[in-house]
């Protein structure tokens, strides 16, 4: 579905991403893993056409730069890492905007189909009871779920998520990951997500792309990529050993 070829991003002299290539096909959940500054968020921004890059990104064998933004948004939805809203929009109003990609012509408005989809997504993300609250008056976790709901309302083939459970309680983390897992089961769908928690990455991901300082350290099946040597390489510490030590206490 999505193919990235020799993607490089440079800010002035600083090389953020260097020659990154990978491909995502339907049914896959690609985990972007790596330490801070590895270039994960920049990669997400590049895939959302938010930064200029060299190399090529193709959606269904067509360069994403050739897509009109609205057409692209119907197939790929992106959820950013942090959100800050300046006005008292309600949760529902923010989620509603996810349907923008389906609106055409002048004076477009929300249709009844839109409303059905919005109601459904608000239900499954647990936002339905608080949908009329101002997004400036809700918790960080609720805000996170609001923007996740917006991305889901876009009804894309590929979901790109930067830290989707960043601010969430454990219960919501579990619910969101199970929700996404269920979402992925439908035909022609894929997820690309940045996940800091390696246990979550390993458990829910099918593929992984391990990055360090803009370079690909490992790429492939999640079990193969997240091995001891690769992780030492990427994180400059024995992640594997530490994880085993931490989790052995829970047995």
């Amino acid at each position: 579905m999505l193919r990235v070829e020799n993607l490089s991003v440079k800010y002035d002299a600083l090389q953020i991403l260097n020659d990154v290539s990978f491909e995502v096909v339907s049914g896959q959940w690609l985990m972007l893993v790596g330490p801070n500054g590895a270039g994960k968020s920049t990669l997400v921004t590049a895939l959302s056409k938010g930064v200029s890059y060299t190399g090529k990104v193709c959606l269904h064998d067509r360069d994403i730069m050739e897509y009109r933004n609205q057409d692209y948004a119907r197939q790929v939805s992106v959820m950013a890492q942090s959100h800050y809203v300046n006005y008292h929009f309600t949760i529902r109003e923010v989620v509603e905007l996810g349907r923008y990609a389906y609106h055409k012509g002048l004076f477009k408005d929300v249709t009844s189909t839109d409303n059905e989809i919005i109601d459904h997504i608000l239900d499954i993300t647990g936002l339905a009871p608080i949908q009329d609250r101002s997004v400036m008056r809700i918790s960080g976790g609720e805000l996170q779920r609001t923007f996740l709901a917006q991305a889901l309302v876009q009804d894309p083939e590929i979901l790109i998520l930067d830290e989707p459970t960043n601010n969430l309680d454990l219960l919501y983390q579990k619910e969101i990951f199970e929700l996404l897992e269920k979402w992925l089961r439908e035909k022609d769908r894929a997820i690309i997500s940045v996940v800091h928690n390696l246990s979550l990455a390993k458990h829910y991901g099918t593929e992984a792309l391990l990055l360090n300082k803009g370079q690909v350290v490992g790429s492939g099946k999640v079990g193969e990529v997240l091995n001891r040597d690769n992780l030492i390489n990427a994180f400059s510490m024995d992640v594997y050993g530490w994880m085993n030590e931490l989790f052995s206490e829970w047995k």
Partner: protein
Amino acid sequence: MMDINALAKKNKFRFLDYAVFGVIMLIVFVLCVAIGSVRVSFFDTVKVIWSAIWNIPLPEELVNTSSIIVSVRLPRVICVALVGASLSICGGSMQGLLRNPLADGSTLGVSTGASLGAVISIAFGITLPNFPLSGTMVMAMLFAFLSILFIISLANKIDGSLSTNTIILIGVIYSMFATSIISLITVMASDKVKQITFWTMGSLQGSTYTNVVILSVVLLICGAVLLSLSEELNAFAIGEENARHIGVDVKKVRLIVLILVSVLIGVCVSIGGSIAFVGLVTPHIVRMIVGPNYKKLLPASIICGATFLMLADLIARIILNPAELPIGVVTSFVGAIVFVIIFYRTRKGK
């Protein structure tokens, strides 16, 4: 006073509320036509307007009254309403586009740019032959647009992404720059100092039906396009990055909005001078009542902006009778007070 329940209610703002706003606007309009520097009875006011519409000859004693109401007061009130509506829709759009509730044509330097254009046309006597509009208007529009192009390309050069903070900063700096050029021209063109000074004070006096037509056409076209962009403006108001994520063609929409705003501001500035605070305060007040959703905010801003400026002009016309106060003095005075009250209440409500 602003709690979550109130916000929920705002969401229910519907047609009926527009009707209420509209009726208030009409009442204010009638009030503004009926009251003025020269006292005319309400009955006579209606009579002379009615006669003017149907071309009915008037008795001798009402001829002068007709001049005052039909030729002077009525076009002025309509122009004031249109300018108020235009400036408010501009302010509202800018506040969404830049995600900054304090943004306005003036913060972006568009008003000052337009003023610069007008001052240049006054100082160097630039007029367009065989052109129905005065050179001032064309120059104001042109310079409003050139200013915006300049600000955008500079912002683009600086960080490539037209980041909103950069644009506002450049707007403010540009404003200062344009103001200094205006001062320079004022000093150099010493024979036109008088005109320039009077012009920068701003006046909607002498508004004609030609002005009414120009303002209506411009507001109708630009306003309609802006209203059709309310969904995009919502997206910008939430965040530029988010707007891109949901599929908004960020750069294109921004360019369109900026062009429309510069045309509207250019026309308003050339007709009425720069009138501060309207574009800032109206959308702010309206947002308190109808919420931030641009589908409601823009239409409500148009109505409330017209109402607000008509009232401000009414005060300007009658408070020092027979002298007049510059309308900008009233808008700044009223605007600043209202602004502080709103600011205080919302802060306290938190």
